[in-house]
């Protein structure tokens, strides 16, 4: 009951919070528009007998020194502000919006010219330009409005230009281009509607500026002059009576402030609503972990356990109530032992790790129950102060490196040294020497040079090593690493897994590895805990679990990691040639921050009809550029790409590209069904056939009609990727290029998408499948091209990769793939044991 009452109160509060600024603005607009009718000229009626009356029954807000009613004048005064707001917003939208869209859309010379113009206008301070203009044009309401409009439009050009440019080049719109959409359609349907959010916020800020600006101009004697009723001039007139009749000052001051604040608030909320389609953040709860006083008693903690987690549960507050994301997890890690936590994404792996040290981000409100004992000491319920001494010293947690887990501006050596100072109490100089030792310990060859660099200059593998060095700085007996390999190239991942094994053996550190890669777990861990929906569904000796899984979730994970080999050699040898690319060269031009980079340096590729070509290589080798080139999306490309003997052109709609990031490839405001319908329409499917074709497409990729009604963000990563593939299929392409189609997915979704690609292959669709992981493409490809430094350097046959690999890169990739293969894990693990000291 209490809960329901609280909910109702909360909803009512939210409603008021939303409607208050709207009501204020409505009153303002009404006063401005209908002012003359409401006041009927009384704002200029003077009556010296009634001068300086205090607020009361006769005059609600009192009267001024000439006996004029303050409330009436306040209502009449809204007019000038309203006219100015209206004119300025129109000027900003038309002038700023028009020029901004044009500059962003066309780019080039016009864009550069507009940026210069904006530079000039914004270099003249707003107030100064408005002042000079109003002073020169005269002080009538329309002149003031024009003066302010002329000063306030430049930010619109800049913001709208940037947003237009970003969206024009977004993968979602490039995909539409390949499907045959004409640029005006993309502009009107996909770019302009997306500008609503940022522009609304800007409009609110501008409206507030205008209201303040009108008053300021009046004050400086360049706008409305007394006796004209205007909020600014009313403020000026109130000045002699600041002490004797403060209401004369307060009424217009409050009016200006309230309307300006309301503009800001309403625009802010509308902008959020436009951008996210939800009333995000209307009511948030304080981010404070709530813990119960009672804890489960731990009966039988194994004496040798370094970490013992018992009955750990985590509930997250999501605005409506608590949701359980970790449910009664029990784990144990012995000294020197390694536990791997495996499971699909969203199964609660990371939440468990964060809960152990209460590391939830500030905006997350979590409730943690259960017990986490570390060398016999209970962590759940410790206050921040005590936890801080545990973090980094007793347990080091290495977060996932997605988006950068290192301070971007601080040299990495200093970041490692910071931890040394904190936990080992060394002086700065000594700590920096120790940091160099630590960097050397994690296998960095030239620690002195690397220590001086910032994370941006390092590769993913190097950053992961620096994170490890910082984690080791506090000499913790337990290390928790969250997905240490998932953003790395296959070869870098192998090196890192070997490093972890070496460190553990040398320092006798206990290790918890969180991963969705069973191969990583198999190589490192003695025990395995399989997570599903916040629970541990199976746990035990790694090799025993992998050999004889008992739980269906474990079996599904193993099946996903160990796909059966592709159907025996298909014969595509005498199929006609579909696509030939000869001597492709492309140099990405020099940019502000980097010199010219050659991305393609003479790449050749042939694809036969119905054939699937795998394309592998490490990051930065030019794979994505080659993909875009084959689709005809690289205007700077030199060399020839021919499809059936004709130069490839994206307008022919015969080659489609599935971009790397499925989230960016979809318009977040469009439902999946809507996106498919648009693609089909562009392909010339008649309106009457659309629903049936759309359903067929959804079914083809394993989605349901229900998925079709959802927006991209309401789908899982794997479902999104399938939707993107379905949209590409809508155009009935001759060749489908997929750029890293599974690298953002966990192993279960990865297997689903690979199986989908296999079935497309069986339908006879020609594809180029790009990945950094040989283990992915070998499942779908008839032939594998190895890329290195912008060139195809080797060609492998999926059945006999080890024997066909000739180039150094190919051999490395094959070795990396064998390292993580599931059929090797039951053999004795032969990790290097570190230097024999």
């Amino acid at each position, binding site marked *: 009951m209490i809960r329901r009452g609280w909910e109702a109160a909360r909803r009512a509060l939210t409603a008021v919070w939303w409607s208050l600024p709207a009501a204020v603005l409505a009153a303002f607009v009404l006063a401005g528009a209908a002012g003359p009718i409401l006041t009927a000229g009384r704002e200029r009626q003077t009556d010296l007998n009634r001068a300086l009356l205090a607020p009361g029954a006769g005059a609600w807000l009192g009267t001024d020194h000439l006996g004029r009613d303050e409330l009436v004048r306040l209502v009449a005064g809204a007019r000038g502000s309203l006219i100015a707001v209206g004119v300025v917003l129109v000027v900003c939208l038309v002038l700023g919006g028009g020029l901004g869209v044009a500059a962003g859309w066309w780019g080039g010379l016009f864009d550069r010219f507009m940026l210069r113009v904006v*530079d000039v*206008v914004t270099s*003249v*301070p*707003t*107030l*100064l330009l408005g*002042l*000079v*203009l109003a*002073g*020169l*044009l005269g002080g009538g309401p329309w002149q003031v409005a024009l003066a302010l409009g002329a000063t306030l439009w430049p930010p619109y050009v800049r913001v709208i230009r940037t947003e237009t440019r970003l969206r024009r080049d977004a993968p979602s719109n490039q995909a539409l281009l390949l499907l045959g959409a004409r640029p005006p359609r993309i502009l009107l349907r996909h770019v302009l509607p997306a500008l609503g959010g940022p522009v609304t916020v800007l409009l609110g800020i501008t409206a*507030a500026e205008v209201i*303040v600006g009108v*008053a*300021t101009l009046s*004050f*400086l004697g*360049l706008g409305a002059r007394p006796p004209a009723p205007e909020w600014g001039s009313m*403020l000026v007139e109130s000045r002699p009576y*600041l002490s004797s009749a*403060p209401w004369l*000052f307060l009424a*217009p*001051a409050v009016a*200006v*402030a309230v309307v300006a*604040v309301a503009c800001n608030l309403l625009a802010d909320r509308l902008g959020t609503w436009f951008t996210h389609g939800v009333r995000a953040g209307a009511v*948030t709860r*304080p981010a*404070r972990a709530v813990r119960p006083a009672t804890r489960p008693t731990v009966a039988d903690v194994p004496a040798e356990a370094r970490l013992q987690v018992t009955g750990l549960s985590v509930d997250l507050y999501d605005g409506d109530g608590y949701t359980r994301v970790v449910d009664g997890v029990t784990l144990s890690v012995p000294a020197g032992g390694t536990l791997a936590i495996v499971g699909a994404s969203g199964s609660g792996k990371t939440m468990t790790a964060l809960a152990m040290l209460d*590391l939830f981000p*500030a905006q997350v409100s979590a409730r943690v129950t259960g017990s986490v004992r570390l060398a016999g000491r209970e962590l759940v319920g410790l206050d921040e102060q005590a936890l*801080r001494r545990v*973090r*980094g*010293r007793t347990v*080091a*947690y*290495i*977060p*996932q*490196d997605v*988006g*950068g*887990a*290192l*301070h*971007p*501006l601080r040299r990495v050596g200093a970041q490692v040294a910071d931890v040394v100072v*904190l936990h080992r109490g060394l002086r700065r100089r000594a700590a920096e020497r120790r940091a160099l030792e630590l960097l050397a310990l994690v296998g960095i060859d030239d620690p002195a040079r690397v220590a001086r*660099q*910032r994370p*941006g*200059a390092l590769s993913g593998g190097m950053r992961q090593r620096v994170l490890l060095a*910082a984690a080791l700085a506090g000499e913790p007996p337990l290390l928790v690493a969250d997905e240490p390999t998932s953003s790395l190239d296959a070869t870098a991942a192998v090196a890192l897994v070997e490093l972890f094994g070496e460190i553990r053996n040398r320092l006798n550190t206990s290790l918890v590895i969180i991963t969705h890669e069973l191969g990583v777990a198999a190589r490192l861990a003695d025990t395995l805990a399989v997570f599903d929906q916040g629970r541990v569904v199976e746990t035990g000796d790694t090799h025993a679990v992998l050999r004889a899984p008992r739980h269906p979730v474990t079996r599904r994970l193993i099946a996903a990691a160990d796909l059966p080999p592709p159907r025996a050699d298909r014969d595509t040898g005498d199929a006609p040639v579909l696509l030939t690319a000869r001597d492709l060269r492309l140099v990405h031009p020099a940019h*502000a*921050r980097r*010199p010219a980079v050659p991305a393609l340096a003479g790449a050749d590729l042939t694809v036969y009809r119905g054939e699937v070509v795998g394309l592998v290589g490490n990051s930065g080798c030019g794979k994505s550029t080659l993909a875009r080139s084959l689709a005809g999306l690289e205007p700077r490309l030199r060399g020839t790409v021919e499809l059936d003997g004709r130069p490839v052109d994206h307008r022919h709609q015969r080659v489609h590209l599935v971009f790397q990031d499925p989230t960016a490839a979809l318009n977040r405001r469009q439902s999946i069904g809507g996106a498919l319908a648009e693609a089909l329409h562009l392909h010339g499917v008649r309106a009457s056939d659309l629903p049936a074709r759309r359903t067929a497409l959804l079914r083809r990729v394993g989605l349901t009609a229900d998925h079709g009604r959802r927006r991209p963000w309401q789908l899982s990563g794997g479902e999104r990727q399938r939707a993107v593939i379905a949209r590409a299929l809508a155009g009935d392409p001759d060749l489908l290029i997929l750029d890293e189609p599974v690298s953002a997915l966990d192993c279960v979704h990865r297997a689903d998408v690979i199986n989908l690609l296999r079935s497309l292959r069986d339908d006879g669709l020609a594809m180029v499948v790009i990945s950094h992981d040989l283990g992915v493409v070998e499942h779908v490809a008839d032939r594998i091209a190895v890329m290195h430094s912008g060139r195809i350097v080797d060609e492998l046959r999926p059945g006999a990769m080890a024997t066909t690999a000739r180039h150094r890169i190919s051999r490395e990739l094959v070795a990396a793939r064998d390292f993580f293969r599931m059929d090797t894990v039951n053999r004795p693990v032969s990790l290097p044991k570190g230097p024999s000291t």
Partner: protein
Amino acid sequence: MVRRMGGGPVAAVAARLAEMAALVLAISLVSFGLLLLARGDAATSVVREQGGAVSQARIEAERHRLGLDLPAPQRYADMLTRAVRGDLGNSIRSGRPVSGEIASRIGPTVTLALAGSVVAIVVGLFVGLAEAAARGWFVPALLRGGSLLLVSVPGFALAFGLVAQFSLRLGWFPTQGTDAGAWSLALPALVLGLPAGAALGRVLSTRLREVLAEPYLVTARAQGHSRLTCLLRWALPNATVTSLVVAGNILAALGTGTLVVEEVFGWSGLGSYLIAALRYRDWYPLNATVLLLCVVVIVVRGVSLSLATLVDERARSTP
């Protein structure tokens, strides 16, 4: 803005300076163009001031005497060549050289702008950090609401309010003039600096909250750093980089903010000089003051932009 590659810092600075010079030139053209659009000119003001019947013939004669009837391009070229030689022209109203008049009035304005900047930066840092660091909902809501209110009130209204409370009621500060030294500076500096500080604080706290949600803050906390270290060593530098350009704009606008504050407190600085020139259509002083204020804006913005680019570049590339 500068998209050139290589050449090192000297070339970059030279390019930036050349760009600034071009900007100043463009602005001088704009401001000259605006004067051509104006209703009325100095000749009308002079005739009106001399008294007697205002006839078209008298205005024309005066216009000829002042050289205002010459073709606009010639007047612009004349002004430029003189300005290059350091001659900003003479005021029509007083007949004295503009450079001398500006020199005698620039002191109070500079003092005011600097004091206002100090207030703005202190208030901005405090509001931004306090809002990002505060727990619960009350303190952040209070700071957010307060800063939003401060940026939504016209500067002169804030001045009236502060004068009513602290000068008229409590008698702590003088209401007018510059005679009482630091005491007379206090209220003007607050009126100038508080809204700018509130604006800075709003930007900074937004950026800080963004940065606090970054993955590297989880790293910092996992390493055992205290909340204060996380905020000051990890969050603040990264938030400052993204706030720098906006901060430059806000601080640059203080230069013109002095106009209003000087008018309220009856200071005889550049602001009142500009407004008087504007009313009189006295266009040598007007042009010179407008350009001077624009140069300040360009320099402040240029510095903040260069700083932001420098830090940004450091974050991305090898040293």
